[in-house]
């Protein structure tokens, strides 16, 4: 950097546009009495004796000498440096730029001090010149950072020009340097441990406390980082993007394309929801069936989610954006898994053998049930039963079974076609296919459910009777109802339990795919600095007499908290019965409904 004396040229230029170039002090024109910048008023309140913390971006550690631009936080006595302004510059243009950024991001920036990167030995004149700049941009305290090239020795000074309010406090503050990675801090999002109810983030100024203020400042000053060193702007800055603004062609194309695509899909989805909300589906038998089938629930849930993702409104805050991204990734994965299932089914013509195996299995189950009923109608385990009631119930169940088997045999030529169509529905997603499978199982085992209902009701009556008998035994008068038959409910319970377990497992799987925030987990895996739980510090090489240097790094959010914070709200397709209440209901004979009841709040 040549120290050219431009005194003559500078003196000839008009007062308002005096260009400041590095040179011996006498070449700088007489400083124009500019109105006092806001920096002076801001810096007047400070905590005396507190160590001054200077947050310095690591990308500027090798930049050329210049002015430090950033924000001063008086409550924590910390200066957040955002960029370095290089020579030559015009003070008025620098102030204009800061005013622009202030308007764009509502953050008050100021010139905080000077930065000196010495390339040769002892450039004393530069040092004096930099000190003289303090008169043009007055800021309390005035920071002076200096570094020798190629060495790790830094020197920092923070001077005050005003008379300190309380006598005895020094004119110079102790400075502690904290380095931070500007790009990571800009892109990261802090997750506070607990959302305090009185934490109001005011719109006027970033009032976040502590280190959140640093993150906030960097995030709001994005307008400062828009130009790089290849631009021909009036002011030359050094920051994390000064080597070239980051951009991606794919991202830009996606942004352009997303507008019309969103509009188109939003129209389609609104048509579909209007069609599904028409009066025809509200008639009683249809509405009852729709509400009980889990596939309808799943489809409705997916429709809601897709409407949210493709809505033309922009996301208001980062949480909503994350939710949209999570839903999109989840839907895409679902469809991908469904298509994989479809190709697997088609691959070796598996539907045929599957359909052919179904009818013999149903026959086998019916035969076993018939044997069971015959055994119960006789003298099961040597017990003597109420013969008349036995015969009535047994014959009723046998007839029921016979009807069911005939129905299955009637349906057998159509099963292959039905399975083919079910497989086709996997295009909508693996969850839809699983829901249909769960519904089919429920329908196929409906006869078992009927037996269970009869048996459970009778068992319940018996238990009530026994309990009233017990009360009588204890000396209280009550109505006595004696029932002695009814052991079929015990064995049927096992079958029922198996069916409920399989259905529960399927619903669990569906719920897992629905509610897992995959985009957030992927982000935590690949770009851990985006989701920050806090920060961590490392002390860098230290020498006695030199200021303390720390490196601030981002502490990523643990996986458990990622899932907890960004979990998607799931529909009612989760296991409707916790296992504890299931066993209790079985024991006491209360009915277990395979679908969700209207008033069932515990699910």
């Amino acid at each position, binding site marked *: 950097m040549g120290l050219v004396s431009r005194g003559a040229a500078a003196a000839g230029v008009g007062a308002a546009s005096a260009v400041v170039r590095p040179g011996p002090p006498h070449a700088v024109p007489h400083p124009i009495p500019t109105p006092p910048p806001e920096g002076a008023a801001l810096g007047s309140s400070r905590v005396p004796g507190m160590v001054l913390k200077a947050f310095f971006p690591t990308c500027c550690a090798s930049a050329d000498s210049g002015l430090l631009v950033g924000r001063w936080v008086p409550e924590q006595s910390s200066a957040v440096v955002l960029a370095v302004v290089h020579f030559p510059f015009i003070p008025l243009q620098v102030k204009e730029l800061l005013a622009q950024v202030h308007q764009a991001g509502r953050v008050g920036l100021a010139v905080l001090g000077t930065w000196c990167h010495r390339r040769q030995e002892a450039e004393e004149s530069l040092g004096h010149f930099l000190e003289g700049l303090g008169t043009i941009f007055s800021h309390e305290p005035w920071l002076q950072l200096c570094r020798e090239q190629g060495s790790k020795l830094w020197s920092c000074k923070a001077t005050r020009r005003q008379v300190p309010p309380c006598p005895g406090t020094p004119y110079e503050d102790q400075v502690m340097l904290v380095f931070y990675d500007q790009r990571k801090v800009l892109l990261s999002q802090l997750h506070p441990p607990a959302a305090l109810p*009185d934490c109001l983030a005011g719109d006027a100024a970033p009032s976040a406390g502590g280190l959140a203020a640093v993150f906030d400042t960097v995030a709001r000053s994005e307008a400062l980082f828009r130009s790089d060193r290849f631009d021909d702007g009036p002011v030359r800055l050094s920051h994390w993007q000064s080597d070239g603004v980051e951009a991606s062609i794919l991202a830009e194309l996606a942004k352009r394309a997303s507008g019309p695509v969103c509009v188109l899909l939003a129209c389609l989805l609104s048509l579909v929801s209007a069609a599904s909300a028409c009066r025809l589906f509200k008639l009683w038998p249809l509405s009852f069936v729709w509400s009980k089938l889990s596939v309808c629930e799943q489809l409705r849930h997916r429709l809601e989610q897709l409407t949210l993702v493709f809505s033309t409104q922009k996301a208001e805050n980062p949480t909503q954006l994350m939710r949209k991204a999570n839903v999109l990734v989840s839907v895409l994965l679902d469809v991908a898994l469904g298509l994989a299932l479809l190709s697997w089914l088609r691959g070796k013509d598996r539907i045929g053998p599957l359909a052919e195996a179904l009818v013999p299995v149903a026959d086998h189950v019916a035969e076993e049930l018939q044997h069971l009923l015959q055994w119960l109608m006789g003298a099961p385990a040597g017990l003597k039963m109420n013969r008349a009631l036995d015969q009535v119930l047994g014959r009723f169940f046998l007839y029921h079974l016979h009807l069911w088997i005939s129905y299955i045999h009637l349906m057998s030529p159509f099963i292959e076609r039905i399975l083919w169509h079910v497989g086709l529905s996997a295009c909508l997603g693996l969850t839809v296919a699983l829901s249909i499978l769960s519904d089919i199982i429920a329908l196929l085992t409906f006869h078992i459910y009927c037996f269970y209902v009869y048996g459970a009701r009778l068992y319940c009556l018996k238990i009530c009777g026994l309990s009233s008998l017990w009360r009588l035994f204890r000396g209280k008068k009550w109505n006595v109802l004696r029932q002695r038959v009814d052991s079929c409910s015990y064995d049927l319970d096992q079958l029922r339990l198996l069916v409920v377990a399989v259905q529960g497992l399927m619903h669990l799987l569906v719920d897992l795919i629905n509610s897992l925030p995959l985009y957030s987990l992927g982000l935590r895996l690949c770009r851990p600095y985006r989701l920050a739980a806090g920060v961590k510090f490392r002390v860098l090489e230290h020498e006695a007499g030199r200021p303390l240097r720390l490196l601030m790094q981002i502490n990523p959010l643990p996986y458990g908290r990622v899932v907890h914070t960004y979990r998607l709200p799931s529909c009612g397709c989760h296991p409707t019965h916790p296992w504890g209440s299931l066993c209790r209901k079985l024991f006491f004979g209360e009915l277990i409904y395979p679908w969700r009841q209207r008033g069932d709040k515990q699910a």
Partner: protein
Amino acid sequence: MEDERSFSDICGGRLALQRRYYSPSCREFCLSCPRLSLRSLTAVTCTVWLAAYGLFTLCENSMILSAAIFITLLGLLGYLHFVKIDQETLLIIDSLGIQMTSSYASGKESTTFIEMGKVKDVVINEAIYMQKVIYYLCILLKDPMEPHGISQVVPVFQSAKPRLDCLIEVYRSCQEILAHQKATSASP
């Protein structure tokens, strides 16, 4: 300035305390726990393999042996990565905060940073732990609602569990820095 002393923990094991004074406002305490002993590792491995061999003679299925090897390896890796803590560090920086780092045997580090604005005090507490009464160092956090209340107690050096003499050293240094911090923040 750096120095190292050896202390003992509540069970009698050796601990090494390293103190680093970077500056009057920044201090670091590093406590190293006893390493994984070869004796206990060999004992556990032998037990698991003997049990697997016993099962193998019963069932005549060689999958049991390979499963036992697999389980031993996975168990050891899981233990080193999630359970065994090698070193615990406490870094106090005046006017920034207190940072606690635990480094596991597999190299993983987990860090917690508490800002100075949230720290009310650092104290030594007494607790009943199994059949012993032990002392532990903890950080008290301020309650934003109540000016004199405490919202949380954060214990420090939980897996190293040093004895009172070690804790007093750390406590004295912390109190020096906190006193300076309170003096500077209380003055107008």
